[in-house]
């Protein structure tokens, strides 16, 4: 599997660390809403199909990426930096053409 890092370009999956479900919302640090915390820590979307995930390019530039990847085919439809405004940072891969 190749993941396209917006900085480094397409790289082998061996260079990346999976950081799981990218849909999880961390409650505000001071939040006392235990249900929200529990949901954040333990409950995951686990779809069969496109999945929004966080990967770290730990064997490269070490940036965290937000990747949309199909869990049935492993096809990656988009990837971008996880930092900041996710939507703006996300870029469609030209490799898909």
């Amino acid at each position, binding site marked *: 599997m190749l993941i396209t890092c917006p900085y480094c370009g397409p790289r082998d999956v061996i260079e990346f660390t999976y950081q799981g479900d990218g849909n999880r919302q961390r409650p505000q*640090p001071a939040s006392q809403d235990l249900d929200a915390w529990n949901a954040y820590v333990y409950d995951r979307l686990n779809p069969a199909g496109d999945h929004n995930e966080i990967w770290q390019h730990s064997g490269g530039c070490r940036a965290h990426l937000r990747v949309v990847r199909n869990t049935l085919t492993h096809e990656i439809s988009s990837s971008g930096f*996880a*930092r900041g405004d996710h939507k703006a940072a996300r870029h469609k891969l030209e490799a898909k053409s």
Partner: protein
Amino acid sequence: MSPRRAETGGRIDRLRTIRFTFDGTPYTGYAGDTLASALLANGVTLFGRSFKYHRPRGVLTAGVEEPNALVTVLRGEVREPNIAATMVEIYDGLVAVSQNRFPSLAWDVNAINQLGGKILSAGFYYKTFMGPVIGPLKGTRFWMFCEHFIRRAAGLGRAGTTADPERYERMNAFCDVLVVGSGPAGLMAARAAADQGQRVILCELEPNFGGSANWSRETIDGTPAADWAARAIGQLEGHDNVRLLPRTTVWGYYDGNTLAALERVTDHKEAPARGEPRHRYWAIRARSVVLATGSFERPLVFPGNDRPGVMLAHASERYANEYGVLPGDRIALFTNNDSAYRSALALKNAGAAIVAIIDVRQELSGEMRKLATEAEAEILSAHAVVATEGGKALSGLKVQRFDMVSGALTGDARSIHADCLLMSGGWSPTIHLASQAGASAEWDAARQAFLPPRPTQKWVGAGAFTGSFSTAEAIAEGRTAGLSAAGATGAPTALPVVEGAPGDPDPAPVFEIKAKGKSFVDFQHDVTAEDVRLAHREGFVSVEHLKRYTTLGMATDQGKSSNVPGLAIMAEALGKPIPEVGTTRFRPPYSAVSIGSLAAERFGDLKPERLTPMHDWHIANGATMYSAGLWYRPMIYGLAGETIEQAYVREAKATRDSAGIVDVSTLGKIAVQGPDAAEFLDRVYTNMFSTLAVGKARYGLMLREDGLAFDDGTTWRLGEQDFLMTTTTANAGKVMQHLEYFLDVIWPELKVTVTSVTDEWAGAAIGGPNARAILAACVKGTAVDNATLPFMGIVRGEIADVPVMICRLSFSGEMAFEVYSGAGYGTHVWEALIGAGKPFGLVTYGLEALGTMRIEKGHVTGAEIDGRTTARDLHLDWMLSKKKPFIGSAMMDREGLIAPDRLQLVGLVSLDNRPLNGGAHIVEELDEANPHDSIGHITACCYSPALGKHIALALVSGGKARHGTRAFVSDPLRNRFGPIEIVSNHFYDPDGSRMHG
């Protein structure tokens, strides 16, 4: 000399004679021979024994799909089992032996299994060997008793235990177009793509490029196909954007158009050159791929089809045309399609007599009749072979009239005298890689074959791979595929002109001749047509059940030629068309790959070694090293004759009495820099760091998000916006990732950089009553007295002309300092400290003494912060700030994490003055015979020189409340039981007067 070698022909080099042995008998062959061709040339027909019935077997094929002729190749003590003789290129001194036979290939006692016949039918194991319900052999014993013998009878070759002395390597390659297979289709594709200026890699599993062009005896552009192929390769060699890889099997098609290939670099040589790997594993990331992998000929299923001397038709053509070897003198052919006629002619031209062509079809084209006439062969149309004769070699066969539609055999059987029977049951495109890449195959009724699925990754197919079985089509499709893979269009120049043998690519839909006797479907695993029908009767009708129940297709050839016949027989039993039955799943590897090649450069070198700057000093000064993750650290610096315990007791005692020094360079060190660094640390640690003064350090604790303890260490404030965090050695990488995750994903607004500086700094911890005096003796540029360097203070200075940073902190519980210098100066500073310590009797100490002193102090490490304990369990609740939220703060008070019966940290003292063991358990009541009701376990233990006792740290249920009570260690594994007292974990100097000075 060679009874079956023609005087001329083939691409072998008759001027180079090669000597080798098979089962100890010396033979000769020519350069260019395979073991199979050379043995055939010597008249050898018996190559191996089958898996289950130990039936005698010859060569069935001439290539990678060979199920029968498996041998072990020996290089001294090093064994390579289960190699197909068809894939072994002979070299001088080759030693090959046959397998799965005792005492010899010709006389194998296990051949008695054949008498078991019907009892040893598919799935018989499941129905028996369950043994008695009572008595000594009940339960699993009886089965295990039987299994012992079954296991020894099963198995093919024997693996060696001697380490392979040769090397294996990996190569990462990138290309625009990867072409797999170098037949006419692959060659055209590679040329087309290369002409477009693309980076091309061409892989061919055989030693020679050209595929079927090497043996088809067709004419391309007016020259023999083999010459045409050689010329095409010559042209490709001229391109510097082309890499040609012979002997390279592409075995895996992985996600993202990553393909795995195995190059057999030196297997065909007597010995590798210096530094040359035996196998090179290519990981190829290709922009696009051309699959031109050709096709496999299928056997026909009929009684006695496994007798040595029965061979695939095209294989004999290869032996004749590529090696000048005739597989027999009197040859019969049995076919359901036109391709065998070409084989007949080829063998005739090579000098054999073709005694008959037995064709299941009634109607034969004029062209085929003409070919048969040229081959001087009698045609028996609408006939089938119903038996073969002979012992370990074929002597003849029986044929009968056959009705293709009903499958009925009629009339008298006629005997035909022949020493070789060639069969052709049609062709199956080699779609393995395409299927691995994703979708499932599609059945084509005309071709009677599974064709490749629509691409799920970026590949295009060409040639026989797509079911286009003529060379002209292969050439045309090859060029189109090459261009399309290169992203180009249009083919202005004319295509090469092919003069090939005519023929209809569609076979008759006949797979099996039902007559009396064992008809083999999977040759290696001895799966017969009857086994398939038995599976059907017992309800194992899905092809995947069929496979697992009968082991059809699970042998070393992975059913390359047997799968389709097998499922055709199942389809017939079910009364369903083949596509409704489907095919089993294709999986990597395409053909078996050496495990050495997969380990590649890590064979013999699993993990790199991580060394501290002072590593060589430790070794030179008698340290026994301990591997901690990837690091090596001194365990003890033993003196002559000392035991480990004597050494660490001496080291710890000397430290507490005077001073000791230890290498702490492996501690994780992370530079935390930026305007928000302090704020960030407040969020990361349970305690406060924004209040820490510049020039001071603080002990910090981190929790995981789920509220459990994660890691601890000291963090030094070097500047307003500049912190140096230390972590435990084991968790350095994890902590770094944890910090990066929060900075990048959760709090991107924080202006903080984190950088691993573990390797920047050499660290030495020096502690003991004389530590300060030693420092004072060697440090320049700063004082180290209490005022200048208070507890948790940091100063900068110089030692032996090198800048150092010194922080006064203590793990040992003594007055202690950590001295950091640039790693390149580590040994220099270390030696200076040791020099300064000489007058004070400074000792170097290792991990054991370090551990001893920390146990005496009750400090926790990874054995206690084991991912299941909380700050409270470890009595670190004083570090949980109430003034701010931090990672884990919201989750740490959940019911399960505050339960009173949780395992809590305590100290233990051995009351029988005997050593305790790590991993021993604690019980309230001792029951040596039947230990039960553990209340906890020992995490670390030692003999404490300071206390003069054997002590331990332990995690004990409700531990804190048990201080002062007695219990027992219960260590049935090491038979150590005895009384202990549960005490506080702070054994030694609990109020810290020693380290505060």
